[in-house]
């Protein structure tokens, strides 16, 4: 059994620019001036052609460069609706390993699409280098322009700039990795049978959201540094030696007790799949590799799950900004403008009282930051003294790079916006018969609403906190997971089913304890060792 490394080093703070060596220059303070205004607008038929897409792309790129958007190279791909559904089905990736759940997804998408219940997304964009954007064949020219601006310059620059993506994803290798994963899984199916591979993948998928590292591991220290530290430790140990104490005989029973009490793992582990990959006693090497593959894919998508509002908002803000700029420069015809604005309006529509639309919220927030920079009110000066009256380009660049949804909202949601959205927060307490309105968009409530909304986007409150608690090393080798309740929220009853999957991976019995706010175990689930 391998040892568990302590993956939660606090001491070493990551240097901002270390991630993959991707250093970025200073953001532009002002937009660069245009070299030459367009003599006449670009042609605007409703059907696109390759030449037209190319022409529009060139203009959009030039405009984006004037704003200093830093992107990966772009690769546009034209696909059919059916291929779009294919891409949908395999979580948006151009290649992926085979699994029945993707087949299910495809069937469901196809059915909805054919019945007309659902339009397909206009685009899919892949965080890879070059950044691949899918344009659908059915789209009109105006839509293609919108998609290019949105995906190739909005999302693309976000992928390249945001700290989470820099930290956790490697755009240049993801496609290669997925190709490897696909081949590996196919090979396993050939060797060990489709069914056993499927079982493995099912179990891993059940734990997929618990297969991510939430904190960055410290960079490995160099051998020289390691030696230096070793020398330090030895020197220190040498100082502590007291020969008199050393001669005292040890009490035998005490030693045993210590060994008995030693836990495994010594610290609770939150990355369940990692723990299983490294420690599950019975897994075959190929099974470990499958766990690893699922874990890697989960980690790749982890930043996307945490930056929905920011990412979509950023892309929406930029397609809006770029296309407007192009209109101002005389590149876009009026008809074109009306057409994409209509789609844009649909995208950022917000139904009152329903869930917040990430596109709407994100778009409004970036627009609001720009407003605060350019035309701050007295209130804005009070709330955002660092922002008011500065250049807006560096301001939103900073906002895009260094936050995730939770902190972005916590930092930038302004009272102005809360009033505009008429945000309010509702408390649903199980013990009360009624909902309570805890805060609304007024002077007394701004802080509260902002905090509540920020929490709402915090993955750690959205998903139950479940960690590896203990392994019974001296007994039946059973694994104990611990769920720590937050605000008394219980686990969903599907936990029992998930536990069966954990047991399949672990190979021995598995327990899950739910610990309430008082630190007492309030509920237990358990699954016996799978019989094989």
């Amino acid at each position: 059994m391998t040892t568990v490394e302590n993956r939660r080093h606090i001491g070493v703070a990551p240097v901002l620019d270390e991630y993959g060596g991707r250093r970025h220059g200073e953001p532009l303070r002002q937009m660069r001036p245009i070299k030459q205004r367009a003599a006449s607008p670009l042609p605007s038929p409703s059907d696109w052609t390759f030449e037209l897409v190319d022409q529009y792309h060139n203009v959009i790129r030039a405009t984006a460069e004037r704003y200093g958007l830093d992107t990966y190279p772009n690769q546009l791909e034209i696909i059919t609706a059916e291929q779009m559904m294919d891409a949908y089905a395999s979580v948006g990736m151009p290649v992926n390993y085979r699994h029945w759940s993707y087949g299910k997804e495809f069937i469901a998408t196809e059915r909805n699409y054919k019945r007309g219940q659902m339009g397909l997304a206009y685009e899919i964009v892949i965080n890879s280098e070059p950044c691949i954007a899918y344009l659908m064949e059915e789209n009109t020219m105006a839509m293609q322009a919108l998609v290019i601006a949105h995906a190739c310059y909005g999302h693309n620059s976000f992928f390249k700039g945001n700290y989470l993506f820099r930290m956790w994803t490697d755009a240049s290798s993801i496609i290669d990795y997925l190709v490897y994963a696909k081949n590996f899984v196919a090979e396993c199916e050939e060797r060990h049978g489709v069914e056993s591979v499927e079982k493995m993948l099912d179990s891993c998928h059940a734990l997929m959201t618990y297969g991510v590292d939430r904190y960055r591991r410290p960079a490995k220290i160099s051998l020289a540094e390691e030696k230096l530290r070793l020398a330090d430790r030895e020197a220190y140990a040498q100082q502590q030696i007291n020969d008199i104490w050393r001669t005292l005989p040890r009490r035998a029973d005490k030693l045993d007790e210590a060994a008995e009490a030693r836990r495994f793992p010594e610290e609770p582990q939150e990355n369940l799949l990692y723990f299983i990959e490294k420690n599950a006693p019975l897994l075959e090497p190929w099974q470990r590799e499958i766990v690893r593959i699922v874990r890697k894919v989960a980690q790749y998508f982890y930043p996307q799950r945490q930056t929905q509002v920011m990412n979509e908002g950023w892309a929406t803000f930029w397609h809006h900004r770029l296309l407007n700029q192009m209109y101002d420069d005389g590149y876009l015809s009026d008809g074109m403008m009306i057409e994409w604005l209509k789609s844009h309006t649909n995208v950022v529509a917000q139904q009152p009282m329903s869930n917040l639309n990430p596109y709407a919220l994100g778009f409004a927030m970036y627009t609001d930051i720009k407003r605060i920079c350019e035309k701050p009110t007295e209130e804005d000066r009070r709330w955002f003294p660092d922002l008011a009256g500065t250049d807006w380009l560096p301001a939103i660049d900073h906002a895009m790079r260094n936050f995730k949804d939770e902190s972005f909202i916590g930092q930038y949601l302004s009272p102005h916006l809360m009033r505009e959205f008429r945000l309010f927060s509702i408390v649903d307490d199980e013990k009360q018969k009624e909902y309570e309105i805890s805060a609304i968009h007024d002077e007394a409530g701004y802080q509260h609403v902002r905090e509540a909304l920020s929490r709402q986007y915090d993955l750690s409150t959205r998903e139950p906190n479940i960690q590896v608690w203990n392994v019974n090393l001296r007994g039946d080798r059973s694994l104990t997971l611990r769920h720590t309740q937050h605000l008394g929220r219980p686990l969903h009853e599907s936990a029992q089913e998930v536990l069966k999957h954990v047991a399949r991976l672990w190979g021995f019995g598995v327990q899950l304890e739910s610990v309430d706010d008082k630190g007492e175990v309030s509920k237990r689930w358990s699954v016996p060792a799978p019989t094989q």
Partner: protein
Amino acid sequence: MLQQIIDRRLSGKNKSVGNRERFLRRHKEQIREAVRRAVDGRGIRDMERGEDVHIPKKDLNEPVFGHGDGGVREVVRPGNTEHMKGDRVAKPPGGGGGQGGGKAGDSGEGDDDFVFHLSREEFMQVFFEDLALPNLERTQLADTPEWKSHRAGHTSDGTPTNLHVVRSMRGALGRRIALGTGKRRELLELEERLALLKHHEDVDDFEVKRMLAETEARIAVLRARIKAIPFLDPIDLRFRNRVRTPVPSSRAVMFCLMDVSGSMDESRKDLAKRFFILLYLFLTRHYDKIEVVFIRHHTQAQEVDEQNFFHATETGGTVVSSALVMMEDIIKKRYPRSEWNIYGAQASDGDNWHHDSGRCRELLATQILPMCRYFAYVQVAEAEQNLWEEYRKLSDETRHFAMRKATEVSQIYPVFRELFRKEGTKA
């Protein structure tokens, strides 16, 4: 920045076919059930359609850890027009509801089945799963006139169109290396020696001069020889080889024999028809080309087209052997057994002129069965009359003769499966 627009529309259309296969495999039981139901309920004309399959959503669930209802939750919503801080709003009845879906979607009416469409191909796949053509000594190769040409390695001789350039060039390269290596090595040595000699301290010495001249001459010879190795030689050429192999005949003829005497009513005919259709569909999966011959009979046999076969009504007595005689004639005239795989299917209510049944058995045993791949008899009535008795003797003796009874529509498919089940699998 390099920009590219790639047209992917033509490539990789059915990328998720593999995923779909796995999905179908996982839910085989439900799908098989749906197919069984569809076959029972369907009209004959549309037997080949696909089918919608319902699978309960709970069977498709992929469980993950999640929060259940309860505890304290705080949600931020937009669009407040009426509430002030501290307002209390009644919860909708039935617990969690309201916010984020809650229970409403998990039980009761909201729990729709997951429905998807099985394509025609997939439908047939499930339909005929585990079935095989019984005891086939597949048409003997000796008398098959059919050939298929396919690749078989490479030869050193062939037509220019079949030239394999890469292999030829590889051969040439190998030959050039092989022929030239010794010479080149010697050349290298001589050149070194030449260099040494040229820098010899007494270059004017006669002996040295002589050696110099010798070496130079030898170098010239070697150079010429290396140069003379041909770049491409006829022995380098490789051609793709194609050979013709005999293949089993892929043509089949199916004889449908049906009793249309007065005792065969519409519902019995319908049963017979279903059986014929199944057999036909099944054969289409095994043979490229299938012809169907319809022979109906009462006291006399008649070759008719499909429409008449199934729909025209006749009355009168029954002489089964008349149909068998006609089948034999037709085979002899039109379908030489060396070229055709012959299948026979007979449906009757078992009613026959009692002196005729023995003759039927004899005809089958001596004339027809030796020519057939398989002959199936389906009786669409319960009563076991003398025809059944006679045939029973036959089925004990012959392996490629089978007989079953089917009296209801729902029995046709099981009977069919039983007849054509693969050795060693359950029906």
